[in-house]
């Protein structure tokens, strides 16, 4: 259950607990039904308690990943986004991208529709840093590097 997951996460300081998808699945399905079935003060209070626990689980696991611990478990891919973010952030701040006032020059990797414009691989886009990040995680674009 969710409190045990949070509690385990607290106990282990130097690893992201490897929570299997199956464990999470049971919890998620139970709460999904609860949400769908009821809509009263008590059940909403219960859901709030669970939401806060889930938030804590996220915070504890993510903070470990930020500090360089390897992501593991059902949310491995989600947590790994932090490492992509870190790479892009560092690349940007240390001048490894062609850039001007927070806009970054990128190459399109695969067919995409950005901002209603249909783009082909090899097309060139100038995007604000936050968009770069989002589109990197979806592999639509790659910032052009000053030095590979």
């Amino acid at each position, binding site marked *: *259950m*969710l*409190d045990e997951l*949070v*509690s385990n*996460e*607290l106990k282990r*300081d130097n690893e992201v607990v490897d929570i299997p998808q199956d464990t999470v699945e049971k919890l998620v399905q*139970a*709460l999904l*039904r*609860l949400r769908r*079935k*009821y809509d009263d*003060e*008590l*059940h909403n*209070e*219960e859901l709030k*308690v669970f939401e*806060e*626990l889930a*938030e*804590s*689980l996220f*915070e*504890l696991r993510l*903070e470990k990943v930020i*500090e360089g611990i390897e992501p593991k478990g059902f949310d491995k891919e989600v947590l790994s986004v932090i490492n992509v973010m870190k790479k892009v952030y560092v690349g940007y701040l240390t001048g490894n991208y062609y850039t001007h006032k927070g806009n970054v020059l990128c190459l399109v990797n695969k067919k995409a529709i950005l901002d209603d414009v249909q783009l082909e691989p090899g097309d060139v886009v100038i995007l604000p840093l936050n968009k770069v990040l989002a589109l990197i995680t979806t592999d639509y674009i790659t910032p052009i590097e000053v030095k590979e």
Partner: protein
Amino acid sequence: MVNSKIKAINRIMMVTKKKILVLDDWGPFDDGFEEISLSKGSEDEVSTWLGIKLQEKNVAKIMDMVSVDELGRVLFQEKQTINTPASLSLLPKDFYHRVQLLRENLKQKNDLQALEQLRKLDQVVNEIVSIRIRKIMQLAFLNISDESVIDRMTNEEFLVYKIIKDIIDRGIGDIIGN
């Protein structure tokens, strides 16, 4: 990290079980994992958040509470051993959470006597925390990690103990060879 951990500890406590005295028949309530039915006059155990809600509705009374008198006893004990860190007295893991519940109860009463009790409670708890944290720091510093001692700490105290111990170990470790 510290903030997140303290938040997490408090949140976990909201789902840990607490003993209640049932004041009125209630249920069945499907909490998604089990069905709960309470019969008037019985003693039972429910998640803290539910206990609090039921107490608000006068359906139950949480029994795992501390009283101002009990706090006084804890303080007395701590004071007597003020210079012996290892003599930390045993508190329930959710001790401070219980104190919080007591405080909220007193606050809601909103009469003079309750206010007086509240004032006294804050003072007593303040002293308890102060003495115990000092002991815990000593324990961390003396590198005492005896199960039996650690078991006497509350959840929050154990966190503090771990953080300080980590700082000490790391502080030295980081400098003396990586």
